[in-house]
């Protein structure tokens, strides 16, 4: 059987959900960061598949932007994590709750 668009969409939906769940239930900030990357890349998959099936390039253009943005976000995120780590000596997000209520 040939692989239709829906396969891609389902797969990316799957990856996206896994990203969300990972973000929700992992306590290590770095892993949460990875989950976000997972979400972004699953969207990339969707975009590529769609633009492929529609023969329209806009989707792929967006993918490039997403990739670069993802890179930038990763850098900023890691930088912040280091800043936090210097202060608190932990990357456990549940230990980082100075502000609440």
């Amino acid at each position, binding site marked *: 059987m040939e692989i239709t668009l829906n396969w891609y969409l389902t797969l990316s939906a799957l990856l996206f959900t896994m990203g*969300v*769940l990972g*973000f*929700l*239930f992992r*306590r290590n900030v770095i892993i949460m960061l990875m989950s976000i990357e997972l979400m972004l890349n699953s969207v990339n998959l969707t975009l590529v598949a769609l633009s492929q099936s529609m023969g329209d390039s806009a989707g792929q253009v967006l993918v490039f932007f997403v990739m670069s943005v993802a890179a930038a976000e990763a850098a900023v995120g890691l930088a912040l994590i280091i800043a936090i780590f210097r202060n608190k000596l932990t990357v*456990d*997000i*549940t*230990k*980082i*709750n100075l*502000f*609440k*209520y």
Partner: protein
Amino acid sequence: MDPELLIELVILLPLLGAAFNGLLGLFQPAHRTREKLIGTVATAMVAIPFLIAVYLFATFDGEAIVATVFTWMAAGDLTVNFAFRIDQLSLLMTMIITGVGGLIHLYSTGYMHGDDGYWRFFAYLNLFIFAMLNLVLGNNLVVLFLGWEGVGLCSYLLIGFWYKDLKNSAAANKAFIMNRIGDFAFLMAMFILFREIGALDFDSLLAGASSMDQSSINWAVLLLFIGATGKSAQIPLFTWLPDAMAGPTPVSALIHAATMVTSGLYLLARLSVIVLSAPVIMTVIAVVGALTALVAATIAITQNDIKKVLAYSTISQLGYMFLATGVGAFYVAIFHVMTHAFFKACLFLGSGSVIHSMHHVEHELAKDGHGHELDAQDMRTMGGLGKYMPATRMTFLISTLAIAGIPLFSGFFSKDEILFKAFEFGYDGHLVGWLVYGVGIVTALLTAVYMTRAYVLTFEGEERWPHADTIHPHESPWSMTTPLWILAGLAAVGGLVGIPAVIAHGDLNWIHHFLAGDQAPVAEYAVHGHVPVALEWGLIAFSSLIALFGVGLAWKWYSTEGPAFDEKLSARFGGLYRLWKGKYFVDEAYDRAIVRPLIGGAIHGLAPFDKYVVDGLVNFVGFFTRGASFTLRYIQTGIVHSYAAAIVFGVILLGWLMLS
């Protein structure tokens, strides 16, 4: 001279006064102690507008004048001019405000002498006059609303004037919040009227009223009335007014007796055409008014703080006015606003002068180190003040007789007119008319009783403060007694502008012709069958007898036994009396039902919302995805997780709403 220019002067001068004293005092501490200058400027800035208003009144030809200053809003189909309107109603109100206001300013120059906040006080007072004039002179609901909010703000500032005492600012907050509730009902009424009629200036409003459908008219009038109850202290929003007595006495006299609290009635009178086309709501108004009058009067009987008595009597009298509005006699309501402004202002100023001198007694006691605690406002420790302060006593007595409705005093005419209108309404086939007439009569009796009680306990009998033989209070300075005399005079004869219709077929009822005549702004309920003259005379005689009876009764009770008689009352009425004494426990009810849950909820419930509720959501999502057992390991979430869970919850909610 050009009336438009004059009216703008009337509006601007008080603002100038406020700016002068406020800014100078704020940025130049040296100015704060120049009491003479401050007082003179402030008083002049109210007195001059009064003269102008009198001039306008003299040259008024019955033709409404609209002075447009500039166009305020012109958004789409909404055009609101910053315009002022001179007609019979606004002129009368303006004269009351500036006249009584001016006298009270003069009085305050003596009363506030030596207070560090002297400059602030007069700045606020002028600001209040400015806002109040905006309220009564504005030519559309928006300008009126501007004044409406303004007076609320000023009353807030003045109630909390002695903010050092925390309970004062608490009272101020209470007044402000309750007013806000009313204000926003008012705002909603504006929205509805604007949607239905598409304009907010009075001419188009009154013209377009006929085009509205019944339900929206009812809604609009009801919301307007709720707004009025907030400002004019009616059930259920009346509890702020007694607390408002925390402010200086002149403030109580000006804002919480003579002017601001009557603005609700002004609003209804101004829109009388619209109100008249909502008979259902009018019934509500009449009943609420009557109830308020009765409830407040019963409470007033039991109070010992002289200012509290006057406060509740104010609420009660306002109830009378709403009663009149409810039976479609708007001009009578305004008539009573006027007479009430006279005698109630006089009463408050009189009580102020009493408190002034009792403070003196307090100081004496403290100086001699007798170590006696004395509440300068408690009537139980007064008595026999009459021989020390004759002027205050005389004026207070006159006003008491006026408010009690003794014939030929001003209160008699206005109150009797209200009762008669209620009776006529009932005679016209409205059951509610009879009802409110009955309540009104009972309240009249109560009024006579509690006011006489207040007078007797204060000025008659023997002196009850400690060391009365050595320590004597003294009469207040001329700057305080002059306004008293003037107001007392007005309270005595002010009613003659409204001779009842039975005499000379109402030709002498000037106020009626002035306010409700043809091409006059105030509409009134048109009666079908007229009450026979003989019956009308009978009613007048009846209500006069009621008043005399009440006065005589209270005099007999309290002149012989003094405050001790209250025990007999409480014994006679038992639980009922306790109910009155406890002010029907409305405050407690509000506190339990509304205040505590709200504040408590905010502090204990909702602030940790993020923590607890959202963790609950984590459970939910976790259950949704992994099953409860697997979740439990992951529940010890840090805040970020709960935030993320909230986002996910939002996503689900959003998707669900959007897709179903």
